[in-house]
């Protein structure tokens, strides 16, 4: 009897090693039970394919579904995955719950991750300012979590996926740069959440190896520092 070759997955995800943004999408696809093919980019040497599919931002993640043009921007992709496919909801069903989830994802991206990244690669007064802003945001997130396993409640959802950087990338960045944002005993709820998040069965396979991640950021120190310097001057 001849073997039927299964068709390739309809979904392709373009990723790059170490990207927490691409990680968000992998977790979302896994939570929804969507099979996908992974294509790995080297962001220091971007392919024509990437530049064609994401001409505006020229970065990962990029999602290709069937023959439609690419979906770009990680949280846009995660909402797309939630709406286009069946499976457990990543955002709640009710409008107020959805607005709350979007509010916190927005907060995490703009008020937490942006200054966090900048605090890692700057110095002096600028660095202190970014660190202070990040810590204020971490305190707000800490208060949001109190008593709950995940930001969404009992189940991992949109906001947890948005916050993934805090669960696995933050202490790697602290180690590589020597910038300590979380000192002993601080943010116990967040640290508990990070353990829940990283040990979740839909997540742990997609966490980049910690040693490789340390090496990745260490190797990129100069590049990230000059990128941030240019961005801050803008």
């Amino acid at each position, binding site marked *: 009897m001849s073997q039927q070759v299964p068709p390739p997955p309809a979904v392709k995800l373009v990723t790059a090693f170490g990207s927490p943004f691409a990680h968000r999408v992998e977790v979302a696809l896994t939570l929804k039970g969507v099979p996908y093919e992974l294509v790995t980019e080297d962001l220091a040497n971007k392919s024509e394919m990437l530049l064609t599919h994401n001409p*505006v931002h020229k970065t990962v993640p990029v999602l290709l579904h069937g023959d439609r043009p690419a*979906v770009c*921007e990680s949280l846009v992709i995660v909402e*797309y995955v939630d709406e286009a496919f069946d499976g457990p909801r990543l955002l709640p069903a009710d409008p107020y719950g*959805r607005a709350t989830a979007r509010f916190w994802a927005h907060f995490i991206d703009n008020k937490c991750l942006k200054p966090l990244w900048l605090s890692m690669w700057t110095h002096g007064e600028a660095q202190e300012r970014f660190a202070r802003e990040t810590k204020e945001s971490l305190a707000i997130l800490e208060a949001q979590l109190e008593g709950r396993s995940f930001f969404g409640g009992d189940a991992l959802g949109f906001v947890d996926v948005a916050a993934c950087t805090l669960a696995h990338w933050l202490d790697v960045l602290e180690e590589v740069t020597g910038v300590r944002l979380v000192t002993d005993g601080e943010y116990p709820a967040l640290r508990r959440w990070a353990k829940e998040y990283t040990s979740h069965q839909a997540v742990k396979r997609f966490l980049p190896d910690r040693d490789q991640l340390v090496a990745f950021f260490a190797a990129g120190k100069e590049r990230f520092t000059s990128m941030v310097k240019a961005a801050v001057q*803008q």
Partner: protein
Amino acid sequence: MNHQDEKDKVKLFGIRSSPYVLKVIWALRIKGVKYDYIEEDLGNKSDLLLEYNPVHKKVPVLVYQGKPIAESEVILEFIDEAWKHCGDPILPEDPYERAMTRFWARFGSDKLSPPIWKWFTTQGQEQEDAYAAAIEQLLVLEKELCGKRFFAGEKIGFVDLSLGSLAYVIPIYEEITGVKMITEETFPSLTAWMGNFQSSPVVKDHLPPLDKLQLRLFTPAEAAWPV
């Protein structure tokens, strides 16, 4: 007062000149939602505002059934979902089209607003570089719009609301700097869109008081808000 009426009351906290607040006003008009408007004094914020938006302490804040929603783009999506069967849709139904809509709304704030703001607020080489960067991004937007009446098609939608303040702010920046940014020759679709937007029933008569705007633009302490 009817208990039900009180429960379903919609309140909007804002300042009349903020493009973020205006987005919400336009969205509520698209849905035909009646609301109580509370004008805030940003130099003396009300206790209610601080209670409803403790994280950012900013406007706009929409309150519905006693629950607050903050962040203009979040509020827009909430309005579309909470009043799904009223008025016209703000986002499309199809998940892929929704993703494209959200992408282009973010494009406005992430890629377009920063160089436009920089062009308006800097001098010399920095200003020239910002102008070039803004033109580059406007060309991307022009291509996306491609002759459509609005980004959403025949009627105003999410992307139009998100980018809408450009329609009245850019001409003001052009007048003040003495430099044209959006000309009909280079940006035929965007030029038409700006006119369509400002004259649409949803927006017309709900633009900020432009004299007050120009006055604000000149006040160093306040300066203009980002687009």
